[in-house]
């Protein structure tokens, strides 16, 4: 898919900041995150545990767990601000305009109701349909997500489905009201590899057919490489790099992305050792000044210690790294990175 630049973005996130007030001070879990998603586009958000990727997704669907809160910034869906809506109004947007898919399909379904009843309930909450029409729509949705024998399976309970089939039911639930945006948080992580491929193919197909935008949050670079059009790499609550998926995967501009890609074992060439980024991501309480990645970075300069880099353009992508500051001290070093 060509990067859809001429469409107005469906989702706009501007300078989003998510904070957790604690007794020992305020923790900033998501800091100055901005991106947008066009209709029909899949934006992958990757990062390691604690990078803030799930929190960003939760902030968008309005499901931040207190005491977590959006401290500043704005989120717009189809031009309308949704981050400051009252609870009831947000509840109507969520479900109708935004669908959510979570990691564990067993905990996102109610074990006491048949899947048909859960689907009908969700459909009737958001669409003015009679019980009969809603059931018909539920059946159509189950067929669309590829559940064999849907007529029969609609009255089954979640425990009667396998993991992959359950995740299909969850996807059907997310699609109930024909949402414009789907936030999928680790949708394939709990599944086996062969099932994972099926679910990815399904999400891609649905996204194409309905022109639904998808925000795909995952730690699995392989899933992103296959599914996403663009990808945002998060590190310590900020976007380290964002760009078309091919550029980010094959020609990473940020040293962190580069290290991350190198650390994934590949089937192409068998190396003796994997590239390794030493150290770990800093805790929220001890994020270093300047660039948050600087203690682990091989290209660290004096500027990285004191000044925090904003996203700046680097090839087809944008990276938050001083190496790409045109005319800045880092310019020659950027060449080293390309050679590395």
């Amino acid at each position, binding site marked *: 898919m060509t990067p859809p630049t001429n469409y107005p973005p469906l989702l706009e996130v501007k300078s989003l900041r998510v904070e957790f007030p604690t007794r020992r001070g305020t923790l900033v879990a998501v800091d100055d995150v901005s991106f947008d998603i066009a209709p029909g586009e899949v934006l992958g958000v990757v990062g*390691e*545990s604690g990078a803030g990727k799930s929190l960003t997704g939760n902030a968008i669907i309005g499901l931040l767990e207190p005491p977590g809160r959006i401290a500043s910034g704005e989120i717009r869906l189809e031009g309308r601000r949704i981050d400051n809506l009252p609870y009831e109004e947000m509840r109507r947007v969520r479900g109708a305009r935004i669908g959510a898919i979570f990691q564990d399909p067993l905990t996102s379904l109610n074990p006491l109701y048949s899947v048909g009843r859960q689907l009908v309930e969700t459909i009737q909450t958001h669409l003015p349909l009679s019980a009969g029409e809603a059931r018909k729509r539920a059946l159509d949705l189950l067929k669309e997500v590829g559940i064999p024998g849907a007529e029969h399976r609609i009255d089954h309970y979640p425990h009667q489905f*396998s993991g*992959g*089939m359950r995740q299909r039911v969850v996807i059907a639930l997310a699609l109930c009201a024909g949402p414009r945006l789907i936030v999928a948080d680790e949708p394939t992580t709990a599944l*086996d*590899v*062969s*099932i*994972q*491929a*099926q679910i*990815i*193919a399904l999400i891609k197909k649905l996204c194409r057919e309905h022109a639904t935008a998808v925000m795909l949050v995952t*730690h*699995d*670079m*392989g*899933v992103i*490489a*296959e599914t996403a059009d663009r990808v945002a790499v998060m590190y310590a609550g900020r976007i380290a790099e964002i760009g078309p998926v*091919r550029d980010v*995967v*094959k020609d990473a501009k940020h040293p962190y992305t580069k*290290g*991350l*890609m*190198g*650390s*994934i*074992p*590949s*089937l*192409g*060439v*068998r*190396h*003796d*050792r*994997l*590239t*390794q*980024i*030493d150290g*770990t991501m800093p805790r929220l309480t001890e994020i270093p000044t300047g660039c948050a990645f600087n203690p682990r970075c091989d290209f660290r300069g004096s500027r990285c210690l004191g000044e925090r880099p904003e996203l700046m353009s680097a090839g087809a992508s944008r990276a938050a790294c001083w190496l790409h500051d045109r005319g800045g001290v880092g310019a020659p070093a950027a060449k080293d990175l390309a050679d590395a």
Partner: protein
Amino acid sequence: MLDAAPRPFVQIEGLKRYFDVSPSWLVRTLERRPRMVVQAVDGIDIEIAKGETFSLVGESGCGKSTVARLVVGLYPPTDGTISFDGNDMAVRRAGAETAALRRRMQMIFQDPYASLNPRWRVFDIIAEPIRAFGLAKDRADLQSRVDGLLRQVRLTAADGRKFPHEFSGGQRQRISIARALASEPEFLVCDEPTSALDVSVQAQILNLMVDLQRRLKLTYLFISHNLAVVYHISTRVGVMYLGRLVEVAPSETLFRRPKHPYTRMLLDTIPDLDMSGRQRNPVAGEVPSPINPPSGCTFHPRCPFANQRCRIERPKAIAIEGGTVACHAVEEGRLAVEERSYDAPVRQRA
């Protein structure tokens, strides 16, 4: 005849482990329900040579973790034998002799949050095997051994005074490795040691494991569902499906020229990170329940090459290209050999 060929370091023959998951006797009698038995491991043969890394791959429920637990003796086998350096593990021995054998094999578990006692200091966690096997001469020797182990896994001696909760997932897995190395084992069984970790941390742990293997001449039995990790670390690979080994081959052979239809299917599911445009075929179907496995070849309901024979007769493992394959289609020559390449053409030429 005896000792004509050198015996493999670890030899597993006809290993079976069934779990009885029946309802209670009363329920069975009143509701006329039959006994239910999960055939978690259903007759597998593995030989592991000294110094190699043998990996088991498969989807969840295929029995790979059960094999790991059987090998270290956490479960007794239902049938079959496991011999370690020529010693049959099922033979009853004097306590000291058993301990001497057990000392030489250790296990690393998947979840570094669940496998470390949260109330013990790291020092005591690592010192436990040393104390249990009486390896240290005195307190000073114990201290220096633990410090050395911590340094070996790239932690510091000062970390010994801390508790597990003060460490990240990757650091905890290092502690698990240090504990496993404490009794100076020769054979390590690693059950999904990196699947709970982020990729960059996974790379650190895999590199550490490779370094340790070289330095300490370790033999690994590595269990994982991640095929790329398995390819990276293994000498030989066994593919499991519903409690049986469907294919065993040297790593390079298995990934370049897979024989069994299930192996081919698994390889198809690896995400294409090189973006070479290789088509990933989503495979239809799911793993059936191991309570009532399909007859004949258990893979036949999902196999595009299955015929009448596959439905009735369980295939035997036949030797082929340095490994073994259990498939009628391969044996009869119905299946063409397939060459696979994963090269990223653009990046390689540049």
